[in-house]
């Protein structure tokens, strides 16, 4: 799918919204009416940038989780932080670096991942929305999983992709009243990633240029086949990332200019690099670089959507949940938004196979 085709699809929806806007424009009040209107409340101010709060100094992994009375506030509501443990961010990141370094670096033909996207929905399916109908008065949380295989193709930069889903689609309701309202509305199917709660799972396999799977650092795509070969020491990775950051500071592709804060650049890059099949050395080095970043905070122990315990790292409005036992990414959570849970991932030798561990 080319970029202009994606644009065409997005633009296919614009005329209908424009029609409504045109109709509203025709009915708009005169400017003098608005000038005379009293504004009833001030506009809500943007939240201030989070403060920096860090424990300092190298400490042991055992000391990374220290007993404290309270946790920093500001959770998304997805996770419940344990109110008895405050995390020393730097210590936790250094401990995770050690843990990551001890993980075996495996290889295979295809990278497998099973992910589960959870989201909030507040109404019926588009097909159930009749012209002029009011949205139904219920709220729900839905989730569904997908399995993906990404396999490098010999002799090319292309990849073979296989995707299967939506799997195990579920809906839950915040209150019995919401569920009753949903049933009263005829129990309509609800949105999940890639379909609805009643969509039968389907499998699609196709070959594409690898950019569809490449992780991103700033404006740079990392070719899929080179991901396992990214620098595996802190000094080398830091030098590599700084080089890309300095180029992006001058202006990268698609109008992108890197932030002045190098740590911010690295943290955003880490989202993709932790999700990709990077080597244990690269992941370890990334944790060590992040450990030097004061704007990153470990905000507490949390439980992911699978009920697994992890530690939340928060910055840039994003929460990464890390498994302390493996230093693997468990969940990616945009604060207040959708969340992506990594149920399983690893290398396999054939497309369609599942990792053994």
């Amino acid at each position: 799918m080319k970029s202009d085709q994606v644009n065409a699809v997005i633009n296919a929806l614009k005329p209908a919204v424009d029609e409504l806007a045109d109709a509203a424009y025709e009915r708009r009040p005169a400017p003098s009416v608005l000038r005379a209107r009293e504004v009833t409340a001030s506009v809500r101010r943007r939240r201030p940038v989070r403060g920096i709060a860090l424990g300092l100094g190298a400490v042991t992994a055992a000391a990374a989780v220290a007993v404290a009375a309270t946790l920093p506030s500001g959770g998304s509501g997805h996770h419940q932080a344990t109110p008895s443990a405050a995390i020393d961010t730097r210590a936790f990141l250094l401990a995770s670096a050690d843990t990551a370094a001890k993980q075996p670096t495996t290889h295979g033909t295809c990278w497998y991942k099973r992910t589960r996207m959870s989201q909030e929905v507040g109404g019926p399916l588009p097909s159930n929305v009749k012209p002029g109908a009011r949205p139904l008065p219920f709220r729900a949380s839905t989730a569904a999983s997908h399995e993906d295989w990404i396999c490098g193709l010999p002799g090319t930069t292309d990849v073979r992709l296989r995707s299967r889903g939506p799997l195990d689609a579920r809906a839950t309701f915040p209150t019995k009243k919401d569920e009753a309202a949903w049933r009263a509305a005829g129990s309509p199917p609800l949105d999940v990633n890639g379909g609805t709660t009643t969509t039968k799972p389907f499998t699609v396999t196709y070959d594409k240029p690898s950019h569809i799977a490449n992780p991103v650092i700033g404006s740079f795509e990392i070719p899929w086949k080179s991901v396992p070969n990214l620098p595996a020491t802190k000094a080398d990775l830091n030098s590599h990332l700084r080089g890309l950051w300095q180029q992006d500071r001058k202006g990268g592709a698609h109008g992108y200019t890197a932030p002045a804060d190098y740590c911010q650049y690295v943290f955003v890059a880490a989202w993709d690099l932790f999700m990709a099949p990077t080597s244990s050395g690269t992941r370890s080095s990334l944790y060590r670089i992040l450990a030097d970043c004061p704007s990153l905070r470990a905000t507490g122990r949390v439980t992911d959507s699978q009920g697994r315990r992890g530690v939340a790292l928060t910055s840039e409005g994003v929460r990464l949940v890390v498994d302390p036992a493996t230093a693997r990414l468990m969940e990616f959570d945009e604060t207040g938004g959708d969340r992506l849970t990594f149920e399983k991932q690893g290398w396999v030798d054939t497309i369609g196979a599942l990792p053994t561990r």
Partner: protein
Amino acid sequence: MDEREARFTRLYETHYRSVFGYVALRVERQAAEDVTGEVFAVAWRKVDEIPERALPWLLGVAKNLARRSHGATDHTRRLVDRLAALTDTASADRDAADGVIARDQALSALAALSAKEAEAVTLTAWHGLDPAEAARVAGCSRAAFLVRLHRGRRRLARTLDASAGDRETPEPIVRPRVSTEKS
């Protein structure tokens, strides 16, 4: 009409449709015109503070007012759901089958995106904001916004490819397709 009034009127006439289009995806349809009016009431009070590039400023106000207007009980209703409801309504009076098919395909693809990804895609595609402006409206850093946009577009492309690959007669554009199987 003094200079301030003239500027306000220009802003109002120029940007009303864009602001309404943004607001309509975030509040109940019945409230969209009221919230749009409130955005411009705020704009009049602060007309001296509005930058030359006014649309990002107006959309930022719209985002805050929509959030407040809509209340915490409904803030999670997805942009795609709203878009579906709005476009269903708008297309009911039209007799353009191709347009309806394109709309349904687009809606289906957009539904695969997270709400924030969908916002990023529509902010740039429909409102013509550059990444820094769109990031301010979305309430995140420029870097985070670009990643969100990149992910959204990539997921959109992938979803469209997958849905094309699932057809009995694939579009030439999705070749080479290796196989398609129902499980």
